[in-house]
């Protein structure tokens, strides 16, 4: 089944062909695949959208960070734990004392405190929170990264569309990046062993010139075959090979030592900090979506020691990233999201831990079209349930899409079945959009 145009009418294929003829052989691969992605990349189409190309860095707090020790503290409550709440630069908004740096930057950030996502199982909750919905028996949905790769990536891009760092071992197999029904074209570049992608470097046994000329020879030899044949898959193969040299040239983006020492010092020496800095380098170069996974939040025992150690790192890295993007004038175009598969129970267990809790937890969105300083959602005094402005995974995703200028009701097609970006009837939270 060719994807081609949505309705598949003959007019579309006619135009496609005319376009092909007009622009010559060089753009065969571009023209033969008129997905939304390529339509965006082709000249004259939707310039406005192209100009304001948005990008996203997702800080994925794997295992489930505690909302009570971060963005929704309950000091003094029996469930509150030992840490205080502190004032922020937004009057009336308090966050945990473990986040003093973010407290000075809340004017850029929106807190969603009313997440009720119903699922406290690591594996399936990770799937839900990366996609904005559960997979169905018959539909494997693309995750946030794959959707953004499809919506904001460019066919001829010299950088990857979707990069995900997840080097810690805890929970890694539960939350792999997944393009779902969008397929291999939008699959992530996954970095699990090092900060350096696989196969991005030329092998030692071939010179750079040979590598390049070999690829030219490949293209030349393929010409005869491609003439008179058209298929989406055929075009995708050519596109993929056309991108190889560009992506190899982006190798240095992954090399954190390319960054001035001063900048590296600002972020700090931890793995999470380095990967976040690399993420900033990537989005600066046009990568639409980068996820930085930071695991070990699953604090069933000794929740407070865990968070005392980990929250300050998150605080520092997130604050530095905001400053860095702001200094570079990128905060209006780059969105930072903090998200986990779920939060943690208000009740403190016998091991002084907090367990999985999906009924009332928090996420943050910073930058792009999000109203900085806003707080949406309210939990009760002990943090046991959402009492106002509840948010589920779907409306969180609708909000992210809307802020990025993507219509959440836009349809993809799985066979003949239209599949909107978020499930039907789900709305963005208008109150936090600029």
């Amino acid at each position, binding site marked *: *089944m*060719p*994807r081609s145009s949505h309705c598949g009418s*003959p007019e579309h*294929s*006619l135009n496609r*062909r005319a376009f092909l003829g007009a622009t010559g052989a060089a753009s065969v691969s571009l023209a033969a*695949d008129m997905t939304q992605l390529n339509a965006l990349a082709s000249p004259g189409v939707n310039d406005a959208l192209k100009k304001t190309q948005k990008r996203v860095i997702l800080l994925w707090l794997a295992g489930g960070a505690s909302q009570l020790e971060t963005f929704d503290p309950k000091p003094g409550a029996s469930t509150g734990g030992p840490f205080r709440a502190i004032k922020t630069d937004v009057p009336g908004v308090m966050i945990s004392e473990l986040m003093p740096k973010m407290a000075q930057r809340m004017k850029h950030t929106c807190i969603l405190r009313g997440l009720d996502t119903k699922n406290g199982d690591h594996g399936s909750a990770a799937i839900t929170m990366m996609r904005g919905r559960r997979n*169905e*028996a*018959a*539909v*494997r949905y693309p995750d946030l990264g794959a959707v953004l790769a499809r919506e904001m990536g460019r066919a001829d891009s010299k950088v*990857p569309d979707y990069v995900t760092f997840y080097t810690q071992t805890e929970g890694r197999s539960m939350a792999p990046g997944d393009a779902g*029904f969008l*397929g*291999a*074209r939008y*699959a992530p*570049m996954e970095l699990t062993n090092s900060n350096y992608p*696989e*196969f*991005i*470097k*030329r*092998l030692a*046994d*071939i010179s750079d010139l*040979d590598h390049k*000329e*070999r*690829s030219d*020879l*490949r293209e*030349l*030899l*393929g010409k*005869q*075959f*491609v*003439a*008179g*044949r*058209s*298929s*989406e*898959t*055929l075009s*995708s*193969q*050519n596109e*993929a*090979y056309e*991108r*190889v040299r560009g*992506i190899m040239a982006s190798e240095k983006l992954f090399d954190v030592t390319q960054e001035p020492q001063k900048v590296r010092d600002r972020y700090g020496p931890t793995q999470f900090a380095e990967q976040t800095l690399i993420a900033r380098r990537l989005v600066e170069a046009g990568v639409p979506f980068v996820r930085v996974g930071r695991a070990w939040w699953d604090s069933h025992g000794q929740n407070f020691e865990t968070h005392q150690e980990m929250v300050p790192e998150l605080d520092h890295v997130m604050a530095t990233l905001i400053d860095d993007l702001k200094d570079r004038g990128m905060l209006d175009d780059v969105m930072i999201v903090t998200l986990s598969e779920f939060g943690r129970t208000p009740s403190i267990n016998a091991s002084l831990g907090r367990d999985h809790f999906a009924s009332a937890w928090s996420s943050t969105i910073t930058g792009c079209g999000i109203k900085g300083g806003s707080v949406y959602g309210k939990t009760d005094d002990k943090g046991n349930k959402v009492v106002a402005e509840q948010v589920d995974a779907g409306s969180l995703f609708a909000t992210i899409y809307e802020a990025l200028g993507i219509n959440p009701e836009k349809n993809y097609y*799985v*066979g*003949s*079945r239209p599949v909107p970006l978020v499930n039907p009837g789900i709305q963005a939270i208008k109150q936090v959009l600029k």
Partner: protein
Amino acid sequence: MRLRLLFTTALCAFTSITVSAADLPPASKPIPQVIDQYIDAAIAEAGVTPAGQADDATLIRRLTLDLVGRIPTTAEVDEYVKSTDANKRTQLVDRLIASPGFARHQATLFEAMFNPEGNGRGSGAFRQYMVEAVKENKPWDKIFREVVLANESDAKTKGAAEFIRGRLSDADKLTNDVSVSFFGVNVSCAQCHNHPLVHDWTQDHFYGMKMFLARTFDNGGFLGERGYGTIKYKPTKGPERTAKMMFLTGAAIEDPNSKEPTAEEMKKEKEALEKAKAAKTAPPAPKFSARGKLVEVALKDVNADFFAKNIVNRMWHRYFAAGLVNPLDQMHSENQPSHPELLAWLARDVAANGYDLKRLTRGLVLSKAYSRGSKYESSPPDSKLFAVARLKPMTPNQLATSLKIAATDPAAFVGKKPEELEKLLEQAEQAGRGFASLISQPGENFQIGVGEALLFSNGERLTKEFLTDGNGTTLGRAKTMKEPKEVAEFLVKTAYGRAATTDEVNAISGYVEKRKGREAEAYRQVLWALVTSPEFRFSY
């Protein structure tokens, strides 16, 4: 009221495509002739000129890839091209279908069909079951029976039970996967609401199908089935309902035990299950098996239409790269086949001939429609006409095995006894398996990602496992040749199974001459360029 009306219309539409047997060509007519009769008629009606027939070298490549999952050796190509035997195509098809490679390759395809998420690498037991099933040409209805009845106490069919076993924790998925695999009907939309677009499918259908499957459970490592159990569901409108076993056609099954058991019965059952567990045997089968009823009702009279059309459509898709109905899981009244009479005839034929899939396969690939060329210089006609052959991206196994064959000195395949040759080819397949696991299984709307291009461009495995130049390899043989032109011709022939064009010879020898003194490296790069280009990556 309006809904009711639409629903009635939909049923009428469905009836209209259930073509009356009297209008169809006689059952005795050979499959290829019937295919060409209908395909050609539609092409003529559209006023389209179809692509000409593919040449011999192309056809043997296509047939070998489709039937046994690899490219032909150059010796096989030469022999086929040279032969003047009028029956050579039929002989080739029969030879390939009879070869062990057919069972292995078809089993891999069935495995990917049954477990699309497993990237073609599911449990060994299911694959082994499918290999044996294809080998002995097990009728498709028998495979259906063995998969759905899932008898684990018979070693011969134990592998088939993996299908259900792998879905035990998710009865919704099991329901939909059974329905998709065997009936071409995706009922998942109807799980939460009546299907918004297709009035054939209501929530009653989804839960009706689920009732056949939801009583299955695991008892100490053995599949069991309860003789009772109900499913209640809340329709989008109205009060809660209790589901009734119901097939897709609306045929309902009266279940004498639909009531819940008493505490006494439960206790007795529990004891029996514990006993079976302790004895490490399968739990006692229920008097009334819901899964048994599903098999019965699905194959009965007109109900079997779904079953027969689904397998025809899937096999058609396997060889023509698109179904007569697309997508394959959307067989319903509002998604008409491109050739309704042809589908009806083939479905009748396969059912009348004991669901013999080898016979169906043979019929499909011997049609003229199958052997059309894949090139079309002007604007190609509507793909639904099957007037031009479609490109098929190779599956991971096809690609890896073919790479291994292209990298092997063609002389290694010459002058071998058939068993020896078969063994070499199986070794090539084995050698490619590891690499195959790095490649994506093509599905609907398949697109090749940059990951694959990076793997081929910079991955060590391609160089180390395939592009070596020792004795017995293509590159080793190339090193013994004097002239770059000779090497160019040799490499193109080995990779593509056809003679090189002048342009290709010039481009390649030019490339090699630029690398004087390090020809071996140059040859490796040329072979890389040949096997990464689309002519190698696709079946065309």
